[in-house]
Each structure stands twice: as C-alpha cells, then as structure tokens.
C-alpha cells in the first residue's frame, strides 16, 4: 500500500493543477484554434476548414493594424526601458534604507490605485485642447495653437501605456539590481574601472536578466492591449487587441479567433527571441 502510494503521490499532487491548466488554458486555446478555421456569415458560423480567415490578416488594413501594434510595442518598450532602468537603478543603489526603497517603490504602483476609466478620463483635463499642458504652453507663448496630438492620438496611447505598465519594467530590473553584491562594484573600482566601466562591465550584464523579464511583461501586455488604445486613441488608433474586440462585438468569431492565434504566435516568437539573447534562468 505505502509503496504504491509513494509512487503515486507526486502524480496525485500535480493532478489538480494539471486539470485546471488543461481546462482553463489548453482547452480554450485549442477551441479558439479550431474556430479560427470555421466559416461564418453575418448570422452564423459553420464548422469547416478554411484558411480565408488567415488570408484576411495579410491583406491591407489588418496587416497595417499589426504594424501599428508593433510600432506601439517598440515605442513603449524603448520608453519604459529608458525611464524604468534609471528609476530602478536609483532605487537600488542610491536609496540607502530599505523602508525608503519600499515606500518609493509603492509610489510607482500609484497608477493601479484607480480604475482604468477614471485614470483615462483624468488625462483629459491635463492633455485636452483646453487642458493644463496646452494652457501652459500657450501662456508661455511657446505655441500659438493648442497642440492637437496630446490627446486622442498615437502619442496619447503610448503615454497612457508607459504610465500604466512601466512598473512591470521597473520591478524585475530593481530585483536583479538588488541581487548584485555591492562588493563586486568595489572590486571593479579597486581594479581600476571608472564609473561608466563599472556600469558596462558589471552592473548592466548582471541586470540583463531583469531587463529580459521586464521586456517579456511589456511584450505580452502591449500586444494584447485594447483598453488604452480605445480610450486614449479616441478612435484614431488601432491595435490587434482592439481589432479582435471589435470583431467579437460584431460576432465575427472565426475572424477574431484567427487574429488571436496569429497574435499568440507572434507574441511567443518575440518572447522566444528575447530568451535566445538573454538568459533569465538565474532570476527564477
């Protein structure tokens, strides 16, 4: 009895998790995969095997939407990295006390303290035609006409996304910076490294896994993003996530499913290529 139990115990332990995993992740994805090959018209969809849904993706408008999504991703990635790394570096190396580090880190999570809608609406008095920024620019005479691109534009979408998701870049980089033994920095200085060299030779390579994890977060979040695009873009901006949502809204399930499959594949591809460049195993 006990011998059998010993052999079975590990399997018994992983069974619930495996079932949940299969039911709520693998099965739905398979379903979406199946549906993406179905035929549909304005009223119904019929089980079939057609590649038309996929063919549509490569044509004109949809393909442009993909390119636009990549553009958002690229801009948000660069912005979160360029802003997030110095913030994480400051927190890790220049804030001396742990309590202050925690407090300042919590400050970075402020965007999550309010709901998405309220947060987006509150951009209007800041960035709108009559908003604070435009009033200030016109008051100082820097511009004659209010800047239109501040709200309901690609700029606004990127701004909203950076504001919302930068913490996902800061947190893993901060974590990997905190793991760097301070004696390594002293040792590098002792061996003649300048400040820039210490950063290039020691700190940057040792925090690269943090950058990789942060980048994976950003990729997965931005590729599926539709709320910020809709609210900040004001109908002017498009992304694959928003496209899928629109297609679901108009009951074009097979088309939405095909887009979802392609989006999934593209996202995975980007993540795999990040992992090929940077080894994150040490951080996990």
């Amino acid at each position, binding site marked *: 009895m006990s011998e059998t139990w010993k052999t079975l115990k590990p399997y018994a332990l992983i069974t619930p998790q495996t079932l949940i995993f299969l039911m709520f992740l693998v099965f739905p994805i398979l379903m979406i995969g199946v549906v993406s090959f179905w035929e549909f018209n304005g009223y119904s969809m019929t089980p079939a095997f057609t590649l038309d849904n996929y063919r549509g993706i490569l044509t004109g408008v949809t393909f442009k939407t993909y390119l636009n999504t990549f553009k958002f991703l690229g801009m948000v990635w660069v912005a979160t990295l360029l802003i997030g790394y110095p913030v994480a570096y400051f927190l890790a190396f220049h804030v001396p006390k742990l309590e202050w580090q925690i407090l300042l880190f919590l400050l970075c999570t402020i965007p999550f303290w309010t709901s998405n809608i309220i947060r987006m609406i509150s951009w209007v008095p800041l960035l709108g035609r009559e908003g604070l920024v435009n009033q200030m620019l016109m008051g100082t005479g820097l511009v004659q006409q209010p800047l239109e691109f501040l709200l309901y534009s690609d700029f606004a979408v990127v701004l909203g996304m950076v504001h919302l998701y930068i913490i996902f870049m800061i947190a893993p980089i901060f974590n990997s910076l905190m793991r760097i*033994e301070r*004696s*390594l920095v*002293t*040792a*590098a*200085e*002792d*061996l*003649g*490294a*300048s400040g820039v*060299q210490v950063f290039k*030779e*020691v700190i940057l*390579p*040792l925090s690269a896994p943090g950058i990789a994890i942060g980048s994976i977060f950003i990729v997965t979040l931005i590729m599926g993003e539709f709320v910020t695009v809709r609210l900040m873009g004001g109908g002017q901006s498009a992304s694959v996530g928003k496209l899928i949502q629109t297609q679901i809204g108009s009951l074009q399930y097979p088309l939405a499913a095909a887009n979802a499959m392609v989006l999934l594949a593209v996202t995975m591809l980007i993540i795999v290529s990040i992992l090929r460049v940077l080894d994150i195993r040490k951080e996990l």
Partner: protein
Amino acid sequence: MQDVKTEPVLAVEAVPEDLQAEAKGVSLRDVTKKYGSFVAVQNITLDIPAGSYTCLLGPSGCGKTTTMRMIAGHEDISEGDIYIGDTRINGLPATERNTAMMFQNYALFPHKTVWNNVDFGLKMRGFPLDERRRRVGEMLEIVGLTSFSDRKPAQLSGGQQQRVALARALVTRPQVLMLDEPLSALDESLRVKTRGELRKLQRQFGMTFLQVTHNQDEAYSLSDQIVVMDHGRVDQVGTPAEIFSRPLSRFVARFTGDNNIFAGTVTSAVQDTQSQLIQIDVPGLGTLLCLGDYAQVGSEAACSIRADLMQIKSLAEAEQSACGPATNRVTARITAVEFTGYVTRVSLVLERGGLEVLYKVRTPDWLTTAFAEGQVVALDWAATDCVFLPH
C-alpha cells in the same frame, strides 16, 4: 569539479619579471575614521615595512577592516594622513594608489570566466591586448588554474575561487596587496595549506602584503609583523613571537592565545638587571610576581601566564619542593580535562579567589601523571614567564 585534495600547489618558483612589482611600505599618521559620532578608528599611527607580511588582528568591529579600506581607498579618511612609500594618498582614487585588494568571499564577477576575471584590471587600465594575454596566462599558470580559464566562478571549488581572486589582484602588479579575511571561507584543512601558499607567494612576488584576520593562528603563521587592534585603536605591534610571549595588555593576552590573566594592584616594583620584578596583589588570591618594563606602585594592572608555561604538581609533591622566591604557586581544583590531540587542556578553579584558570600540557606528559577531575593540585610558574600587563 576537481577534488580539493588533489589540487596542485603553487608550482612556479620564479615569478616572471613583468609580474613583479617594487614593494612599498605603508605609513599611517594619526588616522581617524568617524561615521557621524561613531569613531571606528581612532588616532592610528603605524608603519608597515616594504615587502613585509603584516596582519591586522582583532575581533570583529575593532576597526581593522576600516583601516584597510582606508589604505585601499574604499573609505574616506576623516583625520590624519596615509602614505604609500613617500606619497601621501589621502583622497587619491583607489585606482591610483598602486594597491590591490582581495575581498572577503572574493567578489569574483559571476558573469565572467576565470580568464576575464583575471584580465579585468588590465583591461580597465587599458593595457594592450598582447600584454594582457601574456600576463593573464602567466598569472593563471602561477596559481595553477590554466586549464580552468574558460570556467565561470560558480563552477570552481572554494580553493580555486580563492586563487582566482588572488590572481586577479596580483596581475596588476600592486605595490601593496590587501587581503580581507582571505581564508575564512575555506574549510580547515584547505585553510592550513592555503596559508602556506600565501606566504610563499608573498616571498616570490616580494610585495607588501597586508591582511585582515580575526584568527591568531593565521596571524602567527603568516606574518612578519602583527598589529593587534581593539576598539579602533592599535593595542600592540610586534613580531608573532613578541605578541605570543610578551603581550602588553589584557586584551592582547586574552585575544592572542591561551593566557591566564590575574588583575590586581601593583604593590612593589624592584629593578632587575634589565626589567622590573613586579609584585601584584590579586584580590582574594594573594601576591603574584611578574616581569615587566615599568610599573607604577599602587596602579591597577594585571599579569598573564601562558597556559603551557605552568607546572602541575600534586599537593604532596609541592610540599616537598619548596616554592622559590621567584616562583608563583597557587592551589586549584581540576574541573574538566579536555583531550584535543597533541595537547590536553585542563580547566581548574583556584582554591582561593575562585578564578578559573587553564593549564595546557602535551598529551604524552599528561598521561604519565594521574590527576583526575575534582582533585586539588598545585600550579607553579616562574615570575620570569609571567608577563606584566600595564593596562
């Protein structure tokens, strides 16, 4: 991974010329280090001779590491001056001091190979590539790690990591090499072996080695000069033999070996040929005789006797041999006998005064006697072996 026991000992007898450096001495003049109101190091004046192996010895928090970090340039000097050779180095960046440091736990770059770790200092200082190659290759050969040059530090044993750290520090030809507890991360058997290798390396390279340690055995076996530190001050400077046999303070006597210390008041001081025969009245015990350079009658002081310089006698034996004029004698009860191999350690409690004392004896000698726990015995020691401790 290679078994530590089969690791090669440092094999190269002669150090290549381009790895040799001119040794420079280090001088500290009234050096003080303060952190806010906390004084970590107080008015240290010290000379470390060029080409010597000097150990800063003391318990944790005594300021020895801070002192070393000030010399290395990783800590600002609050007051005083530090010279390397004739150059005053206050405020000079660590890079320009011609020193190198080997860190506790080694601080090897985990993402770099052994080769790149050793190469780091040369690369940062902008040496041409062919010279870097030659010097790193020579250095790795000296520490016997040539075949490990492509490995990462995590793939090495503790002893190998230690030698990478040593190679990395030595390859830049420092005039002074500082070692922060270099042996503390090694296990006992490897530590004793590595101790010998360090000493040999220092002789071969001829540079000044300054080591921080809290282990007196390490300091005794490695040093030409030991600097005993306590509470941010230098307590005593001397050769290992001087520190061992003539401690000058209660702290040094207690910290550097198995010494029995008796505190009391100086009642008389008689000039002997070179030094004074000093009488100390120990409360509850009586008068003890010891030897010292100078003592103020009436001052509070102490004397110290090494645990291995006493003679143990049965009470009957003691009655037959009269206690000479320059001999101290106490009676004590044996409370514990501890066998530690070659040496047996015997703990006793004095019959008068109740002080605990330690007696150390060669195990073969102990076995010829028949003393047992609980027995009362006499302990004799010569006044000339008993060291006067002014403070």
